């Protein structure tokens, strides 16, 4: 399978602490992948590097075909290239309605002057309604997103990511703070998303990862410790020692 994102031998250190150490990682089109690892394993730093928030000291990050280096682009350019990111805490614009949040995220020209000339159309309204329905917020369109529950905010954020039509979705701990019912819905949503695009889920909750039923990458001290199915990696003695055995 051709890879969509190719991370090759990246390292980064903060004040002498090596957060990522010669990490390599590939993901293909339409693939669901879970990244697990203990605290400080470098999961979030890895996402920061892919999305342009942090620059690695060495290594390369290649994207798409023909492959382009993501390291020369800023956050906004990377997002426009098709990398969407969902943060651990739901970050939606609380002062604005669900519809405004989704409209802002809709794939469109992001240039300030183009945005100035943008007017809602029948197509955009339909698309916003579809997205809201997909994440279960169809009847909440006119509510301020600050009024939504924690779980609903998470979904709204996922809806905004969908509106961006990314080719790769990076999802940081989607299940944190969710009720059991909300988790199940989230699992279904993520699995469905992965049918048409690449999805990388960072999570420490093993039950949640098991329900995702996908290939798992275990990170430890900034590099890949094991990769394979969940059953495969949980039998790996190194993994048991550093992570599961605790």
């Amino acid at each position: 399978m051709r890879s969509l994102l190719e991370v090759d031998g990246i390292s980064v250190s903060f004040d002498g602490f090596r957060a990522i150490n010669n990490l390599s990682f590939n993901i293909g089109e339409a693939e669901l992948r879970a990244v697990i690892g203990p605290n400080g394993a470098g999961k979030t730093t890895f996402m920061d590097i892919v999305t342009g928030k942090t620059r690695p000291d060495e290594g390369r990050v290649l994207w798409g075909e023909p492959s382009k280096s993501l390291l020369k682009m800023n956050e906004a350019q990377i997002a426009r290239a098709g990398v969407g990111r969902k943060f651990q805490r739901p970050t939606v614009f609380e002062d604005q309605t669900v519809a405004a949040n989704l409209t802002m995220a809709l794939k469109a020209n992001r240039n300030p002057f183009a945005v100035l000339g943008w007017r809602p159309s029948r197509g955009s309204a339909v698309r916003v309604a579809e997205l809201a329905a997909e994440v279960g917020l169809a009847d909440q369109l006119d509510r301020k997103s600050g009024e939504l529950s924690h779980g609903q905010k998470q979904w709204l954020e996922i809806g905004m990511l969908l509106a961006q039509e990314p080719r790769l979705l990076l999802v940081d701990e989607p299940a944190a703070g969710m009720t059991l019912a909300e988790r199940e819905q989230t699992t279904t949503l993520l699995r469905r998303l992965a049918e048409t695009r690449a999805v990388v889920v960072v999570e420490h909750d093993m039950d949640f990862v098991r329900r995702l039923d996908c290939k798992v990458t275990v990170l430890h001290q900034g590099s890949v410790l094991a990769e394979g199915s969940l059953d495969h990696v949980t039998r790996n003695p190194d993994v048991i020692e550093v992570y599961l055995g605790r």
Partner: protein
Amino acid sequence: MTRKPFLLQNPSVLVVLGLLAAFTLAVTLLSQAYGTGLIPTSTVKILGKTLCLALAAVAMDLVWGYVGILSLGQMAFFALGGYMIGQWLMYARTETIVAASLANNPIPPTPLELQQAVANQIFGVVGSADLPLVWGLAHSLTAQLILVVAVPGLLALLFGWLAFRSRVNGVYLSILTQAMTLALALWLFQNDSGFRGNNGLSGLQNIPGLDAVGQATLSVWFLWASAAALGLGYLLAAWLVSGKFGSVIRAIRDDETRVRFLGYPVEGFKLVVFVLAAMITAIAGALYYPQAGIINPAELAPIASIYLAVWVAIGGRGRLYGAVIGAVVVSLLSSWFTGGRAPDLALPGYVVKWVDWWQVALGLSFVLVTLFAPKGISGLFDWLAGILPPRRHGRDLGPDLGALQEQEAKA
């Protein structure tokens, strides 16, 4: 989604424009030039200047209330607009006077002689007789009108580009903008910077070619111009913040990092608003100083820009009408209390003289507004309209059992 006309979607714009028109008409009908004469010309000038300040406040609200850039250097753009129009006003008027006096000479003056005589008149006060380079276009009204928006616009573009691209934010950005206005003021204070040092430009109330019109009529004309500028500026600002552009800039104010991950070039948006606001502020300044009659570098003092922020805060930032209300109410109150006409407040054992105590009262009310009414005066309108922040009295935030409670969500 139905698309209503812009003004119907934003009824507050109609209200503001209607009030502005009614105010202008009322002042005109009570003025000495066009009406009963109940309002003296000096008061008409104060009201006209107040409208200019309100326009500057609207621009400040765009920058601060909507994009979240607390710029404490807006009055630099205001004063630059004033200086640019002042150059033409002073040059053209001096030229008329000098030409009249030289006309009696046996040999008519050459254009060069005329220019030297004008330069001598204008710059004699700072011990110079040459026309500085920056006055090269002062003879042309068109050129100076273009410079009114071009010079502050370019300054804002350069400053904003440097500051935003290095992601200077919050209080550091505010300090930088203060430094900008202070540096500009100090430069203008120098005699050899070409703007007559601390003398500034004066006699700006005399409009060349309109000597026959008289100040009473001119003051009303300027009131009309200021009202028109405020109306148009308000309309432009309201249009800007209404659509998706408004959505994006408010999002930048609330969480700039998240907006970047949506793919928006945050710096570009900030720059567009910052430059546009600088140009609007400069137009306000260009209308203000002919009514004030004089401009000098003290107008760029950092405190002036801080006042502008205080007006917007008291009026209510993030609401365009809040900015107008704040600027009008606070600046008129300020000039009343500091004008010596406010009656003293006799407390037992101490007499409060407002001239001395007004600043203290203003400072105190700024602190109180910030602490207890962050939406300022416009919060009252929200309260009347029933727009309240979501308050759920500790109940669940969501429809499903076990969703977070309000208290948990805040933590």
